[in-house]
């Protein structure tokens, strides 16, 4: 069992459970129902949600996409679109944000509420300076400066005059937070405030939020789809499913001993640094129900392995269920919550060996990919000033063995996608060499499967395009085979991308890549846009396909846990460089590069031995001389400032590292 409670900040009362003392609560949501209408269909987004937020408490709201987390948040802010049909109440400090007049709600927002949203770039007006935007919340310039200082924005005077695009993602999110706390609100709605951020920045922001909570005593509803993140910051967690609360309890209890089969499934399909690499991930089968076509009974029943006849007949109510080990009581909406402990979970069979009959090879002795000292720069035009070069790749060398899977990790902007694009020839390197094995050219599975498919063409057309030289009938067979391989129904060939669910879309994208299996499959964060359960499915699918078809895989991700799971080896990138590469488990358990080490430390739910790294990835335009990580490194030595370390093999291991002062185990 992981311990979620590793924060140094004390919780304001261990006794806080699912029910707060009435006088202490800052917000009470009661039987909230929200229905949208689209295309003459009713979409019940919330179906009777009740919860309370106590003073000074952080309530985590967890669930898959579409489960109603944001709608709950927006209802509390009183910002649901006018077209929404709302019943029930959402009272914040005495104002019912459902029924009150527009003016009253606005007043409540101004005085009692703050909000932080997912994407700090789009959440700030691009045409206004930070100063002007903050002044909409703060009373004076001094107050604005003070606010910026309190959220840890360095050099606030200068930042006041900056425009949002001139700030890094982390700083922008800090500005958002400053605006949210400007009025000293009693409740902050934070809707996935760290989802768009890199792990290290995410860790910093989480730190800041809990620090602010202790400092200001503000309550917070923290929306996230990552159970681990919620467990790390929240006091209590509510798990939502299809517009209802499936389970609500203390963070520790929900994270370590969930009672609802859905919470359990979520937890199990979550990839962590300890997940068993030898076998497929446990997954939740199926996908969340469509809102316009909800089952009458328990919405989770169709996906639930424990479902009974009764589950399908009646909506289960939230009821207290005691947890066996933590002795905590949670409210769970499952009629079989107590029995579930007794049921054993079958472990999946371990992966088979990688196929030896290698796919897509012209010459069986070819290596699928060899990159040697590849450089790639982009010129970015700065208006009215001289052009500047952005060094996206700064001398990358990488070899993939046949059938091997390498995971490429790194924070945003480190050059991962560029590396992939150079590898398949979509971009030409400025310098260095790229060699690809003969035969079927490599294919990429993109991050956003929807965007990678031409919206107005059918899946069938897109698949058949891969084999355009074949006869019509053959093309069809190829396409159908591919669909079967990824576990999709053949009828999907007639659908257009937007008619598919997210999971189906990602499968179709994978099917497109393997209509003719290439020797090398490149995956650019194929799971980062997917929900936990779908991501697990996709990881399993890629894992099994590459083994069955004998493909080599270069798997790009910013999630170390996924990297460890997929990659035989892990390569860590920083500012256009591979700074460390080695066998997956070794890199994770025994990182050599300080950057790798800090990445691991930043992982949510990690047992943190040291604080996450300060600062953010510097701009690839002005790469500092010497080691590019130097400024953030706590092991920097004098030669780091002048000598740029190169990737050197560590003797007697399969590992290489680019560091003057590597972490010694």
């Amino acid at each position, binding site marked *: 069992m992981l311990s979620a409670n590793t924060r140094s900040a004390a919780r304001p009362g261990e006794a806080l459970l699912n029910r707060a003392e009435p006088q202490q609560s800052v917000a009470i949501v009661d039987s909230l129902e929200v229905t949208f209408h689209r295309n003459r269909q009713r979409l019940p987004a919330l179906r009777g949600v009740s919860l309370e937020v106590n003073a000074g408490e952080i309530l985590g709201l967890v669930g898959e996409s579409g489960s109603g987390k944001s709608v709950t948040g927006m209802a509390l*802010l009183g*910002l649901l679109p006018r077209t929404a049909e709302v019943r029930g109440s959402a009272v914040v400090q005495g104002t019912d944000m459902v029924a009150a007049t*527009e003016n009253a709600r*606005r*007043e*409540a*927002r*101004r*005085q009692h*509420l*703050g*909000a932080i*949203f*997912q*994407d700090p770039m*789009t*959440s*700030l*007006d*691009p*045409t*206004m300076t930070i100063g002007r935007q903050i002044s*909409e*919340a703060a009373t004076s310039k001094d107050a604005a400066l003070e606010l910026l200082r309190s959220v840890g924005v360095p050099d606030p005077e200068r930042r006041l005059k900056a425009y949002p695009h001139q700030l890094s993602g982390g700083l922008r999110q800090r500005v*958002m937070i400053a*605006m*949210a706390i*400007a*009025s000293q609100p009693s409740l902050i*709605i934070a809707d996935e405030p760290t989802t768009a951020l890199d792990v290290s920045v995410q860790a910093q922001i989480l730190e800041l939020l809990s620090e602010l909570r202790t400092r200001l005593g503000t309550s917070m509803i923290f929306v996230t789809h990552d159970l681990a993140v919620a467990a790390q910051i929240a006091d209590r967690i509510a798990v939502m499913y299809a517009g209802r609360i499936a389970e609500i309890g203390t963070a520790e209890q929900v994270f370590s001993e969930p009672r609802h089969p859905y919470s359990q499934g979520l937890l199990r399909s979550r990839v962590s640094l300890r997940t068993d690499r030898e076998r497929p991930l446990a997954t939740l089968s199926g996908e969340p129900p469509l809102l316009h076509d909800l089952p009458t009974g328990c919405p989770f029943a169709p996906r639930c392995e424990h479902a009974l006849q009764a589950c399908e007949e009646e909506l289960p109510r939230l009821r207290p269920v005691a947890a066996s080990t933590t002795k905590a009581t949670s409210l769970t909406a499952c009629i079989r919550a107590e029995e579930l402990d007794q049921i054993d979970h079958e472990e999946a069979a371990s992966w088979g060996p990688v196929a030896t009959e290698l796919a897509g090879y012209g010459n069986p002795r070819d290596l699928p990919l060899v990159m040697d000292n590849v450089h790639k720069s982009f010129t970015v035009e700065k208006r*009215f000033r001289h052009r500047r070069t952005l060094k996206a790749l700064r001398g990358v060398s990488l070899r993939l063995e046949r059938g091997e899977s390498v995971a490429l990790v790194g924070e945003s902007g480190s050059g991962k996608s560029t590396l992939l694009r150079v590898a398949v020839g979509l971009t030409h390197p400025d310098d260095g060499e790229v060699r690809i094995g003969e035969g079927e050219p490599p294919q990429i599975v993109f991050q956003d499967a929807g965007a990678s498919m031409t919206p107005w063409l059918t899946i069938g057309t897109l698949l058949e395009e891969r084999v355009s030289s074949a006869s019509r009938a053959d093309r069809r067979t190829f396409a159908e085979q591919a669909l079967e391989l990824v576990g999709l129904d053949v009828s999907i060939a007639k659908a257009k991308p937007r008619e598919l669910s997210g999971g189906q879309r990602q499968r179709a994208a994978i099917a497109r890549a393997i209509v003719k299996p290439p020797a090398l499959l490149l995956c650019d964060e194929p799971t980062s846009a997917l929900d936990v359960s779908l991501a697990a499915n996709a990881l399993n699918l890629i894992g099994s396909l590459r083994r069955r078809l004998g493909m080599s895989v270069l798997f790009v991700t910013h999630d170390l846990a996924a990297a460890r799971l997929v990659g035989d080896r892990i390569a860590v990138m920083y500012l256009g460089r591979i700074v460390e590469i080695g066998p997956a488990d070794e890199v994770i358990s025994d990182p050599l590069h300080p950057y790798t080490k800090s990445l691991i430390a930043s992982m949510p739910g990690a047992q943190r031995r040291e604080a996450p790294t300060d600062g953010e990835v510097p701009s690839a335009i002005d790469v500092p001389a010497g080691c590019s990580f130097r400024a953030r490194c706590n092991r920097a030595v004098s030669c780091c400032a002048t000598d740029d370390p190169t990737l050197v093999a560590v003797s007697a291991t399969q590992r290489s590292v680019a560091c003057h002062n590597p972490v010694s185990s």
Partner: protein
Amino acid sequence: MVRFIAGRLASVIGVLLVLSFVMLLLQRYTPADPVRAKLGANANPELVAQERARLGYDDPLPLQYVRYVSDLASGDLQESLRTRRPVAEDIGDFLPATAELGAVALLFALFLGTILGIASSARSRGSGVLRVVLVAGSSVPVFLLVLLSLLLFYRQLGWLPATGRTGLRDAPDGPTRFLLIDSLIAGRPDAFFDAAHHLVLPSICLAIGPAVAIGRVLRGGILDTLELDYTRTARSLGMSERSVVLRHSLRNAIGPTLSIAGLQVGLMFAGIVVVESIVAWPGIGLYTVQSIPRLDFPAIAGVTLI
């Protein structure tokens, strides 16, 4: 910056070169005799031949072109066949009136369009009526619109003057040749109000079409931005819907709107020509209209190049 300007300049010069060539071709292959039109029916053939030679109409085309372009380079647009004055000078005389009318019309268009855009995106009261009035107004041929407005506001109500830029004989003819500005410079409020009074009808008639286009783009832009995250941020800070629209949506929707407005300036010209000839506005449109039947090519070419 220098590069940018140089590039723009190069493209403008390219445009002028191509355009002047096209103009010359048109002029050359027109089945018409502008010299005869200029000299009149009774002019004897020698005189016509002489005049043709003087104007260089008999020279080979490339030579004419080179001459035209070199004249152009020195700011010379040849002489109008009709007014017998240098076209550049004519344009200098006529352009300010048009520019003033166009500028005021554009301001009206922006103003009306902005109101329309904001009102119809915020669905505020009266926006429907405004929209119907403007869309209806913009769907009537502009010549009829002007005449009907004249019938109403000039003949029936007597509120607005019918023709010209000013009713004053001693209107200031100051440095900018924009009556509104000149009368302010000259400290003549009476002249200012008189000029404004004369501007109202033609400029509003001109503005309606562009206003609807602007309003439509602006509405789209505002509706788009209202869906955006930063307007949600503003609302979450307790801003009223109106200040959200005014402070955030409008700012961000205004960019594409202005570029539409820019395009409208080009489209407005046909309207300007029509309106000027109806309300006798002494501008470039009137000048053009008069040049057409006489095939005064230097004049038409000059206007086109401007």
